[in-house]
């Protein structure tokens, strides 16, 4: 007997008949394997490209446009040392922070009303908050362009001048303020929804108890509702900050030359200047910014470092 015949004999003795073997195999098939196609797809078309991008950000590009060695950190130092680029980085940070803070302040009342109202009103508010989410960002940016239009033909200026609030038209379009307004509009639902879901989970008995013990509404809010809604706040703030920092369309439509953000700088470096490594370095900084804020929020949420009221 050869070794292979030996193996067949051993297998034959132990394996069930072919048909049964097949069905056993199907039953035993680990359900986890179903994730393999998507894992493979993302590994190849998402993670591998991301690593390639990281790699090209520390490489150099020769005069023929070929990217390779030597490795360098020059693109990163350039982003910080050249005033023009450093300013874009600060503009991005500033616009993202202002938008997230404004979104929080304005979303909190909306989320509260959404959760505490009669079902009919809750439904209407939900629909109004969510519906624009599905309308193209380009269209929404265009809508704001029409409203903020500089000169007396813009809707905002027309209203303000008709009501005699101002005598001369304001110049809002192509400023940072315009980008903040547009971003607030686009990402507002991302703040309202997590807040509303956190507020909805609060046991109303806790608030009732505080009230019965004589706390005025603002104290109930500050000591009970607000602390318990912190997970929603952290989630919403993170989402709005990340999305604003990584946005391209709104600053392109509403910011003009005076509110260029990182996304627009990347596009310019790749499509206009063809400086791939520098574009990649800016991209890495942007990703770093987004991952950092996400990391902090996960640390806050999962470490239960948000204080619960005693």
């Amino acid at each position, binding site marked *: 007997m050869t070794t292979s015949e030996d193996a067949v004999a051993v297998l034959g003795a132990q394996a069930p008949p072919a048909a049964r073997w097949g069905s056993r195999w199907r039953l035993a098939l680990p*359900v986890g394997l179903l*994730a393999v196609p998507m894992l493979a797809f993302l590994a190849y078309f998402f993670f591998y490209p991301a690593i390639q991008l990281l790699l090209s950000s520390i490489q150099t590009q020769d005069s023929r446009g070929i990217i390779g060695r030597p490795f360098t950190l020059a693109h990163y130092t350039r982003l910080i040392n050249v005033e023009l680029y450093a300013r874009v980085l600060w503009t991005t940070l500033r616009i993202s922070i202002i938008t997230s803070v404004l979104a929080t302040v304005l979303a909190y009342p909306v989320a509260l009303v959404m959760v505490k109202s009669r079902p009919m009103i809750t439904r209407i508010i939900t629909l109004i908050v969510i519906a624009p989410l599905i309308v193209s960002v*380009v269209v929404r940016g*265009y809508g704001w362009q029409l409203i903020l239009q500089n000169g007396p033909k813009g809707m905002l200026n027309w209203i303000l001048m008709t009501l005699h609030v101002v005598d001369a038209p304001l110049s809002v379009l192509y400023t940072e303020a315009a980008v903040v307004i547009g971003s607030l509009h686009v990402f507002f639902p991302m703040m309202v929804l997590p807040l509303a879901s956190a507020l909805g989970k609060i046991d109303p008995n806790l608030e009732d108890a505080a009230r019965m013990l004589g706390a005025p509404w603002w104290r109930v809010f500050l000591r009970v509702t607000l602390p318990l809604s912190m997970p929603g706040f952290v989630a919403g703030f993170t989402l709005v900050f990340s999305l604003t920092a990584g946005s391209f369309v709104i600053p392109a439509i509403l910011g003009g030359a005076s509110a260029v953000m990182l996304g627009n700088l990347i596009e310019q470096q790749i499509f206009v200047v063809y400086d791939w490594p520098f574009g990649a370095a800016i991209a890495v900084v942007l990703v770093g910014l*987004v991952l950092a804020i996400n990391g902090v929020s996960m640390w806050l949420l999962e470490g239960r470092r948000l204080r619960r009221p005693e």
Partner: protein
Amino acid sequence: MDERFSGFGAFILSTITAGMMVFILAPLLLVMAVSVSDSYFVTFPPQGFTLKWYAKVLQDRDFLEAMRLSILLALGTTAGSLLLGVPAAFALVRGNFFGLAAIKGFLLSPLIFPALITGLALLQVLTKLGSQDARLNLLIGHVVVTSPYVIRTVVTSLQLVDENLEDAARTLGANRLTTFWRVTLPQIASGVAAGGLFAFMVSFDNYPVTMWLANSEYSPVPLVLMRQLVNVFDPSVPAMSTIIILMAMVGVLLLEKLVGLRRALAA
């Protein structure tokens, strides 16, 4: 507002909420209003009433071609992300293996990664591979950003499925495929449909990924719209925008019917 909020507090809350509702609706309503304005420049307040800009848009070759391309792309993206996402969601909910949480994070990570960078990174790799077919490249890019949405909605609906029903079917002699097809799928159908609708809408509207992977021959709707916005000043741009707003509204209503909006967007 119920009695738990009273007096001054309730007044402030309602005022801010009402103000935000106006803020949210204003740009959309304005776009719709000027799209029927009977003047050759977009101005406020709109003058007269006409549908001629819609007639113009519906004869605009570029726009119609972009519409056709975007719809085909979004359909392909929907199919692709359902094929990859539904089985993966199944694995995440029913699987019981080492590193499940890590794999879930891995599969959902395109959601927190800026889409602009996803597109850029993909462009670099696809260029290196020599893939010149813009349609294929767009399809790949769109599936990367939409499949996590499918996973999220399908995972949510799978968690609500009663596994006892599946066990019952299996005990009665149904095999895995029959059980899935006849017992599981009907229960998660609305979740799958919502995931697919999400994929369609995200793909149809995607700018940041599309920007890198499209070329002059294959430009989907968001790119064409952005171009028109810079070059065209008559109300045909608001007319195009209104068509897109109305399509989105249909999508929202479908989503509301299928799963309820809050649930579709939560988790």
